[in-house]
């Protein structure tokens, strides 16, 4: 009995050793095939750090200073104001010039023109033409009774008409206008209804590029996920001799394991190069490098599993390419870049949270800017997704019919 157990143990040990040997040799084949394809090698090793360097160079070369927002101020303040209670007329405009001075003083605004609407009745039309021509980004209008209200201690009213055709600049424009209001209030000793105080938490310290650090988190997720996926979408479908290999003692699982291991090693090299290149480009990293490495590796592994999954279930290269394109578009659209995930309808939110890129950016942003640990909801979501994709790939590959 004991002898039997011992021999069984010995047999399974020999089986394992043989299997291990075959996997290693299949990996060698994968590497050889990868090295013979120069484009794939470039894509795997050279392109990701190169993109980061280009991105870093681009972001760091833009001057860090403030880019003032071009504006026009129109004042209706000196138009006749009639108080509805007392029917008294007012022609006060003593706060118009101080506001124009404040707008001029603000380093966030670049005052292109000032219109006094009492004298120039087509002021608004002219300003709108400038807005259409993109000569200015915002029209600031001081309404009738602007000075009267402030004198009476009431909240001052300012109409702000920003160019909303570019959603990315609206917030900057509003911030610039708000800065001019702040200067106006301070310079004229007015009493604002609220005074915001405090400091910015998790901001990028001086000496680091704000633009680079702000945008790199999303870029890193995209590069590591996209490159891993592109590298692997054809690894199974384009290997014609697989059917012939299956007429040797090699097992299907060994073939697939060797592919996973090969591309995982490539992924590790890729992630190391990405981290080095981001640090060279002066990434401000609040968290640890190990956390960043694990995060990028997890995102990349999800891309890799998705690529191999597409490859195992496609019958032709064309089918794999088409499927990749369709899947990538959906992942991109629902990743939260264009519309915040929380603003999507519930059913789309569910899909978005299943998709990998919705987790990539928050996970890396948390590590880079807040110093969070990698082991949070996003990490486990990606891990579960990867495991599911790996399992499905193995099942599909095991059941797939190959005939020589």
């Amino acid at each position, binding site marked *: 009995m004991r002898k039997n157990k011992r021999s069984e143990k010995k047999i399974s040990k020999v089986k394992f050793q043989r299997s291990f040997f*075959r996997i290693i040799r299949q990996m060698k*084949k994968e590497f*050889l*095939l990868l090295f*013979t394809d120069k484009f794939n090698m470039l894509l795997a090793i050279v392109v990701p750090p190169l993109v980061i360097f280009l991105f870093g160079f681009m972001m760091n070369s833009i001057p860090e200073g403030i880019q003032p927002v071009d504006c026009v101020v129109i004042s209706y303040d000196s138009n006749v104001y009639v108080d509805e209670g007392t029917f008294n007329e007012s022609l006060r405009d003593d706060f118009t010039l101080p506001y124009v001075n404040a707008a001029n003083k603000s380093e966030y605004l670049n005052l292109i023109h000032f219109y006094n609407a009492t004298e120039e009745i087509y002021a608004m039309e002219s300003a709108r033409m400038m807005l259409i021509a993109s000569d200015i980004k915002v029209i600031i209008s001081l309404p009738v009774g602007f000075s009267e209200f402030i004198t009476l201690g009431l909240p001052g009213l300012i109409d702000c008409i920003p160019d909303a055709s570019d959603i990315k600049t609206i917030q900057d424009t509003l911030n610039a206008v708000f800065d001019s209001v702040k200067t106006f209030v301070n310079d004229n000793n007015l009493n604002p209804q609220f005074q915001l105080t405090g400091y910015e938490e998790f901001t990028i310290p001086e000496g680091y590029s704000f633009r680079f650090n702000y945008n790199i988190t999303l870029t890193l997720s995209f590069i590591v996920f996209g490159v891993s996926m592109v590298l692997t979408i054809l690894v199974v479908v384009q290997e014609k001799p697989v*059917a*012939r*290999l299956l007429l*040797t003692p090699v097992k299907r699982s060994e073939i697939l394991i060797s592919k996973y291991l090969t591309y995982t090693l490539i992924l590790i090299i890729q992630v190391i190069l990405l981290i080095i290149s981001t640090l060279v480009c002066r990434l401000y990293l609040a968290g640890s490098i190990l956390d960043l490495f694990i995060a990028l590796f997890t995102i990349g592994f999800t891309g890799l599993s998705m690529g191999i999954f597409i490859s195992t279930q496609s019958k032709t290269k064309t089918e794999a390419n088409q499927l990749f394109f369709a899947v990538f578009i959906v992942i991109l659209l629902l990743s939260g870049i264009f519309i915040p995930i929380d603003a999507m309808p519930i059913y789309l939110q569910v899909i978005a949270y299943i998709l990998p890129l919705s987790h990539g950016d928050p996970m890396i942003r948390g590590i880079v800017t807040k110093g969070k640990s990698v082991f949070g909801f996003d990490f486990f979501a990606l891990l579960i997704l990867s495991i599911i994709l790996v399992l499905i790939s193995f099942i599909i590959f095991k059941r797939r019919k190959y005939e020589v």
Partner: protein
Amino acid sequence: MVELSTEIMVDVNNLNVIFDKNHIVHDVSFEVKKGEIIGLFGISGAGKTTIIRVLTCQIEKKNWSGDVTVTNFSPDKKQNHPLILYNIGYVPQLELLNLYYDLSPLANVEVFSSTYGLDTKEAKKIAQELFKILDIPSDTWNKRVKHMSGGEKKRLSMAIGLIHKPSVLFLDEPTTGVDASKRYSILSYLKKLNQKLDTTMFIITHDLEAALICDKTAILREGRMLEFDSPQNLINSLPSNGLIARFEINDLNEAKITRISEFSPVKKVLRVGNEVVEILMESFEENLPKLIQYMIERGVTVNSMSRDSASFRRFFQIRIQEEEEREKLRTNIGEA
């Protein structure tokens, strides 16, 4: 004379293959001894590839029945598959399915040999021996396969199939896509390998010339095995041991062929050219002068005449024709 071993490498008894109610192979039985070259011949849809797929563990047991053993292991048990696959080699019809075109021949050898547990050094040694037998130029060994000629790829594919010195090698259409002059050299390479390595070979082919190197040939038609014997025995089974009279006849037509067929010792008249017929008959030597006399009397003008032995090609043609005639008859009786 080379003495063949009595060790049975492949034993097939009453093999039936059914896919979704389609009966593909009907009661096929044969056995193959060590060192033999077997040719499976038949037109498309004869079931050649299906039989090989059963023997190479590519068809699930639910689709076939019968007693089959390959190198003493039955493919009906899944646990036997690795053992069978260790003992057999396979050379597919298309080299594209057998070779990594972006790797060198030696790298290809490494990929396939490793699946059998061979270490690189040993595999390269075997490969070099095979490459020499197959005349694969040494300057191509380290270049990419895609730069090799068609014939070199074909021979490399054979070498890959033999890299682990299998007991049985299956070759699917080894001469397809090769021009006529190279076909014979491929066949002679196979014979050379068979003699040097004592490997049992299974050749599936449409190319009837392959019978030249076969110890036994199987003729299949619509999933049924019509014949299984050595090519010479099959030829000898024809009337007068396959002796053929070839006539060139003026204005040859169906009426003249029918007239010749009516001469009682004639067993078969085959039209093999525009004005040429080949005739098989009983007691060839005795009846040949009588046949010539008969033809002259009936106004069949003979331009020239020669005698020959039937080839395997001719036997195949006769056998398939007979089977078609029989089937026609069966259909006619059925309809009546």
